[in-house]
């Protein structure tokens, strides 16, 4: 059965990293483990064409979304078969399970991932199916088990390391920065570290300051890692699978509040490209770049904006490191205005880096300065109203767009 890469996650085969190479899946030294099942060939689904797509990258196939504002639905649905509906955490679990079935080198380690089923149920049922050696309940020692995952990866295993909350991974920062990110380089290419480090982060519902951190801003400088953020069940499953198959260390950022999003995803196997952004809503007037939970605030604002007569183009950047500057650049070329909406804090966040990158690369295309809406530079307060004020709200997005589009 041929699998398809669906639109919105379309693969420009000529560009960026191809994360998929079935031959690379089995490390030659691991003779005792059976080889991964030979994988299916992937073909790119050729979707319908549209005039506005001419400015988009050649070979980028995607299904066009109607120009009406789309509230919260992701853009894609199966072009064949009926697909099945599930919640985001189930999509992550499906992706993880499929990859564990496919490749016996994949294992999961983290706190309460095994018998408990995972604190957000992402690993539910996996311990019963795969056993204790492949789904490992670790004691509470992030530094040690992250290091262990990296050490195991040096030999060819592919651990998926879960941080129960991204904030806890600060304790493992040394391992992530020095060992995970740098070993491939400092060993002259001898070792690859195919780990996936994943976990929920972001501002939740009154979880308090320490449990509402956005680690993507701290990790973004680490050379040698890739960072992706999922936002829909569709891209959650696709990114999980791609991250596991990638030979590079990938940090997959999930969001505490998005685990119960429901969407219909294809029945057949698919992966998303790790380095690509997702076109959520094409438009003409302004490019809004966002990721993770803020995507939904942006789409909510988009509804209001459309009613007011604006036509925003919304891109979910998905790949936080490296940025998909091709899609972003093409969009800027078209609209000449950029608004970045992110959940990181103002100082040193993803938005800050993205602003710098856009200004450097696409300065000539800009009609107005790049505006970046971020969370406030404060520890997230407990009180509900204050917490609301720390993150960007749809009303602020509308105001910002109006300001930029004057």
């Amino acid at each position, binding site marked *: 059965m041929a699998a398809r890469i669906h639109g919105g996650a379309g693969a420009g085969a*000529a*560009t*960026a*990293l*191809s994360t998929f*190479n079935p031959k690379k899946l089995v490390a030659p030294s*691991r003779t*005792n*483990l059976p080889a991964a099942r030979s994988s299916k060939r992937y073909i790119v689904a050729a979707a319908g064409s549209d005039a506005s797509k001419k400015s988009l*990258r*050649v070979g980028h196939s995607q299904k066009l979304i109607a120009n009406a504002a789309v509230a919260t639905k992701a853009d894609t649905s199966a072009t064949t078969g009926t697909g099945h509906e599930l919640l985001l955490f189930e999509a992550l679990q499906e992706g993880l399970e499929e990859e564990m079935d496919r490749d016996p080198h994949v*294992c999961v380690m983290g706190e309460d991932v095994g018998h408990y089923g995972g604190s957000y149920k992402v690993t539910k049922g996996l311990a019963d199916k795969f056993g204790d*050696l492949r789904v*490992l309940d*670790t*004691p509470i*020692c992030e*530094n*040690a*088990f*992250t*290091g*262990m*995952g*990296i*050490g*195991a990866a*040096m*030999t*060819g*295993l592919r651990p998926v390391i879960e941080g129960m909350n991204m904030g806890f991974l600060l304790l493992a920062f*040394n*391992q992530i920065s*020095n*060992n995970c990110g740098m*070993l*491939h*380089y*400092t*060993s*002259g*290419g*001898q*070792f*690859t570290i195919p780990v996936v480090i994943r976990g929920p982060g972001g501002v939740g519902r009154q979880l308090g300051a320490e449990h509402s951190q956005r680690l993507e801003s701290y990790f973004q400088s680490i*050379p*040698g890692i*890739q960072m992706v953020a999922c936002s829909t069940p569709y891209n959650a499953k696709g990114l999980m699978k791609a991250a596991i198959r*990638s*030979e*590079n260390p990938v940090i997959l950022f999930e969001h505490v509040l998005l685990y119960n999003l429901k969407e219909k995803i294809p029945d057949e196997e698919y992966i998303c490209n790790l*380095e690509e952004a997702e076109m959520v809503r094409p438009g003409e007037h302004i490019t809004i770049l966002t990721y993770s939970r803020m995507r939904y605030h942006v789409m909510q604002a988009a509804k209001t904006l459309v009613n007011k007569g604006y036509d925003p183009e919304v891109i979910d950047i998905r790949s936080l490191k*490296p940025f998909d*500057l*091709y899609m972003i*650049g093409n969009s800027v*070329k078209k609209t000449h205005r950029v608004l970045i909406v992110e959940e990181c804090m103002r100082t040193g966040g993803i938005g800050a880096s993205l602003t710098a*990158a856009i200004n*450097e*690369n696409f300065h000539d295309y800009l009609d107005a300065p790049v505006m970046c809406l971020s969370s406030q530079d404060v520890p997230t307060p407990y009180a509900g109203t204050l917490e609301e004020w720390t993150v960007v709200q749809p009303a602020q997005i509308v105001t910002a767009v109006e300001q930029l589009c004057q």
Partner: protein
Amino acid sequence: MALSRLSLRSNNPFLKPTATSLPPSTRRHVSTDTTPITIETAAPFTSHQCDAPSRSVSTSSAEILSFFRDMARMRRMEIAADSLYKAKMIRGFCHLYDGQEALAVGMEAAITRRDAIITSYRDHCTFLGRGGELVDAFSELMGRKRGCSDGKGGSMHFYKKDASFYGGHGIVGAQIPLGCGLAFAQKYSKEENVTFVLYGDGAANQGQLFEALNIAALWDLPAILVCENNHYGMGTATWRSAKSPAYFKRGDYVPGLKVDGMDVLAVKQACKFAKEHALKNGPIILEMDTYRYHGHSMSDPGSTYRTRDEVSGVRQVRDPIERVRKLLLSHDIATEKELKDMEKEVRKEVDDAVAQAKECPTPEASELFTNMYVKDCGVESFGADRKELKVTLP
């Protein structure tokens, strides 16, 4: 004991390279007998939560001779590195292992190349013990492309994947969880191999050691944690940094063994014992009582926190190479002259390697961005010169 003719069909793995490199004049006299002989270690083992291994070590003349040669080579390499550093050909940090050679050599004698070793930044000799070439070591130290890490790692980042040598790590103690991960992978793939995780007395106070030890003991991982106790954590003596300097006992529920790390035969025995133990019962801690003659690194004279008398005292009484020399002479395995000739050869070997390494080119500018990601992606990295590395739209 009669000296036997050189046998080129000796099955001691360490002897093969030695045999072919000996010039004809010395071949006649040196014993390369592989018949097993038993030698008692000078000091007994002290154990914690386990039975100590026997003091009688099974070895052979050929093996002891190979110990001598390997340790002499390591010693020579470190001294050459010292001179190169002072000549500013090696920069940055350079941590030398001279005095501790018995550890690297004794360990290798007890294990195979499929057993993994991971260590800290004092890794030059461990790399050599794993089969690394002198030229590769010196090239890496001098930042040449020929180096074992393409010149991009430096002194603290030697790796040799095909010999299961996992480095070479700069952050104190960070290699311990990595090492337990290696052991986990060995258990996962059901190989009957073990991992030796080396760390120092300074790193023994790191929290991650205890975290990793807990997991290793919980999951029965074949990890052997080896504390290279050279009594100084950089400038701080063990009595000033550890409430309990009995590092082999600190595992509490994990068995431990204290070993005289300057006695290569004791090290060999302990590692052999530890390997058998780890494969059956999970982790074990080996504390190797050893000493380094140089300071912590080349920036540290090594004399502000210890007296010169102490250093020279250890050199006179406990030097590992001298011990093996005495053993060889007392058992009539080699004569004084032969050993001196061997040392001369080793010295020449090292000098040749240094000269060769000096000729090697430095890495190209484009190497800056290689091996960042696997299959270096088409997206360009942003370098200091933005004019060169910008994204261009099609």
